[in-house]
């Protein structure tokens, strides 16, 4: 992993260290967020699947009933019967916050106070099949609305999970290694500078001693002194 282009200074090192700390903390938080979102998403999506199966089955049988009803009466009579619906559905929306994703919550209101008030026609000119079909549709409606809520939540959460996953991966595989590499580079460089200045100082000291007392090296002088004492004794 490429390191960042920085000057190898102590200040830069501190800056990198604090960035790394932040990145690690963010990574942990985002990972937790992703895991929790995923858990909630899986619960919701299972419900979504079950609901959809139920609704699709319900709509299928509604359609069947409508086809039967249509067969039993003329198309004009049918159109007239359903031309001006009596009932109207209004939806109040709220929102629920799931791990910072705002998912919609629907509550249903109907125009007339009785939700069962669905027959927009007199019974004289329509077949009884139509009544059954309309009733079936009315029964499936709450489930359809719940499905809408559920499916929308799933979609929104899926988008958020994808985003979060990308962020987690970017932090884990790009940002954090990059900072670590950079920190390593700066520490190495600083250590190297430290050593080289140490050596330089020692060298300078030797030179100064030589100049002041005439001996080549302090240690060498000591050794020769010991030798002389040995000879004397």
């Amino acid at each position, binding site marked *: 992993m490429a390191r960042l282009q920085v000057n190898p200074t102590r200040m830069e090192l501190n800056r990198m260290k604090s960035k790394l700390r932040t990145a690690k903390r963010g990574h942990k938080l985002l990972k937790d967020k992703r895991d929790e979102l995923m858990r909630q998403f899986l619960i919701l999506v299972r419900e979504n699947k079950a609901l959809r199966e139920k609704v699709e089955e319900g709509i*299928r049988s509604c359609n069947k009933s409508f086809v039967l009803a249509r067969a039993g009466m003329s198309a004009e009579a049918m159109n007239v019967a359903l031309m001006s619906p009596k009932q109207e559905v209004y939806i109040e*929306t709220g929102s629920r916050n799931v791990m910072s994703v705002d998912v919609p919550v629907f509550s249903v209101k109907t125009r007339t106070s009785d939700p069962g008030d*669905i027959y*927009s026609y007199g019974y004289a000119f329509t077949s009884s099949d139509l009544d059954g079909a309309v009733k079936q549709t009315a029964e499936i409606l709450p489930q359809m609305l719940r499905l809408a*809520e559920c*499916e929308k939540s799933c979609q*929104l959460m899926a*988008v958020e999970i994808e985003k979060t996953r990308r962020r987690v991966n970017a932090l884990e595989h790009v940002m954090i290694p990059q900072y670590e590499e950079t920190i390593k580079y700066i520490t190495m460089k600083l250590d190297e500078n430290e050593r080289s200045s140490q050596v330089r100082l020692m060298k300078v000291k030797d030179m100064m001693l030589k100049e002041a007392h005439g001996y080549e090296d302090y240690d060498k002088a000591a050794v020769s002194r010991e030798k002389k004492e040995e000879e004397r004794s």
Partner: protein
Amino acid sequence: MYKAAVMGDRDSIYGFAAVGLEPHPETDVQKAAAELKELVEGDYAVIYITEELAAGLEKEIIHYSERELPAIILIPGVKGNTGKGMAAVKRSVEQAVGSDIIFNN
């Protein structure tokens, strides 16, 4: 206060009109796209679209799916179930998890 709309061919959606959803009969894809745009901008919380019609509007539907409202939900039409509705659920699972872990049984 939001409304709920249903789009598709006339036969598929008139049943829902009776129970209070707002019907928008449309079979032409181009007109449907314009109408869908209008509905999305309007006060609708839920828009049901028949799978048949939705097959031609895929791009628009995916485009609108990131908005909080309205929810665009596919329903089977009178000509039968094409499995597109389930495919939409499957798609969001794949988007979230990376692979399909719910429908592969």
